[in-house]
């Protein structure tokens, strides 16, 4: 899989994190795995932590430390807050607009 350019990844990673957390309550390692499996390429876990802190500071997500259901050591599980749901909705709309615009440009190129 190609490694996505850093600048492109920077603009979309925040929205992607919100999307993963909106799907289920999860912790950093699982978020990383979800991103890799979704095709984001080799995203360094180190880039995820500052974003999680930023989103937590902006009250878009909330972390809660508790025992792992699989019996492993305690982890910090993140869930979405109302401000996070709003930010995700805005990101999704922006992304749809961007994708549609890109598609139109491609169509014009084919014609």
């Amino acid at each position, binding site marked *: 899989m190609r490694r996505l350019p850093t600048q492109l990844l920077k603009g979309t990673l925040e929205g992607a994190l919100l999307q993963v957390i909106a799907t289920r309550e999860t912790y*950093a390692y699982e978020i990383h795995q979800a991103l890799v499996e979704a095709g984001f390429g080799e995203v360094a876990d180190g880039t995820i932590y500052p974003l999680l802190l930023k989103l937590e500071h902006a009250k878009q997500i909330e972390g809660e430390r508790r025992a792992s259901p699989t019996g492993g050591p305690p*982890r910090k599980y993140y869930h979405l807050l109302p401000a996070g749901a709003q930010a995700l909705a805005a990101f999704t709309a922006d992304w749809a607009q961007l994708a549609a615009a890109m598609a139109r440009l491609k169509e014009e190129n084919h014609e």
Partner: protein
Amino acid sequence: MSETEILLPRNQDYYDRLAAYVTDAIGVDGVAADSTLAEIHQDLLQAQHDGIGAADYFGRDPQAIGDEIVANLPHRSRRGWVVLGIVAWAVCFALAGWRAIILDPARVPLGSLAVLALLLPLAILVVTAFHRRRTFTRKKVRSSFLTILLAVQLVLLPLTDAFPRFGVVAVPAWFSVAAGFGFAALLCGFAIWLGLHSWVFAVIVAVLATLFAYPAADALGTLPGWWGRLLIPLLVVGLTLLIRGGDWLLPAKWQAKDRS
């Protein structure tokens, strides 16, 4: 993955450097930093369990990642800085004052000490920042505490002796006795409250407390002969046992909360 699993040496080294870089950052909220580092540690353990090394998993530029983590961690508030500044000044004034009393109780330069107590914390911040810059380049991870201790003992304290002396006063013997035993008691109480359940920590604190208690006992004029020679080891051993005993006897609810 079990709770008892530990990081391999190369992964532990990666984590230790990152942890030192983040916790040595000036003004970062310590509790928030510890919480984030605990999360990172768990992630590295899980990555290792899945066969991925720390650098491959977390990123090959830990310093840049450390900078971003520090930028997004909560920082000390203005009020927090004021409180820290006052505490730092008071501690430096007390320690430098005690040193001056031991050297010559008849000529203690209170004015100079008040100014030096302002400069010493600033110098310690500079030393910490300098130490932190080399976190990822030095051969072994080293605690900034050791660097600060050496810098204070070998450079900063000798420099203070060259500082102009003003506001000189004579300190009465009763004050030396009260301050010496008082500081020793405070240190031991603090160690018991921390409740680290460690003999090494207890011995370190006991040695520090002895540095206060011995001159106080000396000021009482009761240290001739064998009793005086034996007092230092007796104080170290006695205070170590006192700290460990207090640590053991004090109910956990009155001790400092474990932050991990």
